[in-house]
């Protein structure tokens, strides 16, 4: 992956501008997913992503391979989308107390997880929908860590957040997902006996 990106970048820097299309094709889907998690709007995400790839192209001569190309690209995605959010009046770097690594997980008692089948298609649909609903502060961190399989250090590099802030935001993303999915699972289970009764009548 890294070598392939590097050979394409070398061709682009040697003057073969059209080779850049290969880099765009290789990274556009994952970059688009990150942009969507931040901007929540397909049109805005695609417009931002165009700016990202144009900026990356012009910045290529200054790229020093201290990180992978994808990490560097996601940093541009993150910054461009953060600027777009700021223009909308949404703040991404809220100065909340994020240095609370040691806090104990204590879910509300009415939202204890039921015994559920986590292999079902319904569960997968719930997860997808709730991941899409995650707020812009937490969705991108969850996407980078879970879906793009980046390490904490790489996410720190992409977002410019501290390591503890990344961990806290990831945990809060998980806690939000847990709460939303647990509610839906509980509703589904509560409806099951009623359906059973109706069927038996």
């Amino acid at each position: 992956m890294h070598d392939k990106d590097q050979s394409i970048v070398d061709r682009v820097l040697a003057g073969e501008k059209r080779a850049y299309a290969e880099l765009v094709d290789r990274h556009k889907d994952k970059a688009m997913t990150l942009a969507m998690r931040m901007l929540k709007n397909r049109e805005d995400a695609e417009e931002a992503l165009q700016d990202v790839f144009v900026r990356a192209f012009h910045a290529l001569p200054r790229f020093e391979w201290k990180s992978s190309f994808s990490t560097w690209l996601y940093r541009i995605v993150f910054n461009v989308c953060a600027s777009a959010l700021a223009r909308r009046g949404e703040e991404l770097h809220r100065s909340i107390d994020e240095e609370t690594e040691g806090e104990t997980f204590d879910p509300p008692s009415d939202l204890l997880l039921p015994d559920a089948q986590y292999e079902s298609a319904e569960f997968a649909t719930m997860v997808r929908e709730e991941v899409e609903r995650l707020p812009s502060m937490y969705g991108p961190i969850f996407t980078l860590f879970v879906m793009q399989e980046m390490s904490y250090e790489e996410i720190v590099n992409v977002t410019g957040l501290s390591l503890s802030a990344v961990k806290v935001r990831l945990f809060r993303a998980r806690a939000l997902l847990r709460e939303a999915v647990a509610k839906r699972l509980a509703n589904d289970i509560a409806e099951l006996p009623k359906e059973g009764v109706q069927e038996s009548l």
Partner: protein
Amino acid sequence: MNHLSNNELQSLIDGAIMNGERSRLMAHLEECDRCRREIEFHRSVTRVARALPSVKPSANFTERVMTRIAPREQSAWLRWTLNNLGNIFGMIFVLGVLGYFLTTPKLFTFQTSNEPSKLTEALQTYHGLYDNAKTFIVGQAEKLKGNPPAVSAATDETGKIPVMVVSSLLLLVLLDRFVFQRISRVRMR
């Protein structure tokens, strides 16, 4: 009972727990159903989320990016032609029609009275000169080829249009090269 901290829970979900901690946390999980369910749930969410498809941008996305950073280069001639297509056709048409009329005597023989008008006389004089010049040039050309001078009327008429179109194009190019471009350069300053 004390439950797991955020860090401990996340480390267990992601399988990133240190060896020394592992036995203590596993012992807790054996006793605590609530924490065990949490781990199982979050691992399932991670597995499902990892398998979710990426969001794809629209089909022509790459081409739109490439248009912004590396537009396909056109030759100077092609660019000039595309930019001046309307002018080219307009001038070919005007010069073609003008040339055709000026070299076709029959079109100007109409008159309303027995007395030829000044315009008709002038055109007849012009056509006389044109015919003499043409006969002379064609005769010289045939002499050079070694053929007897003979001009077919049909060939003369049908061959006139392409000759006028080509000469109009040449005139247009010369005008553009030596007049219009100089004017536009002066205007740019």
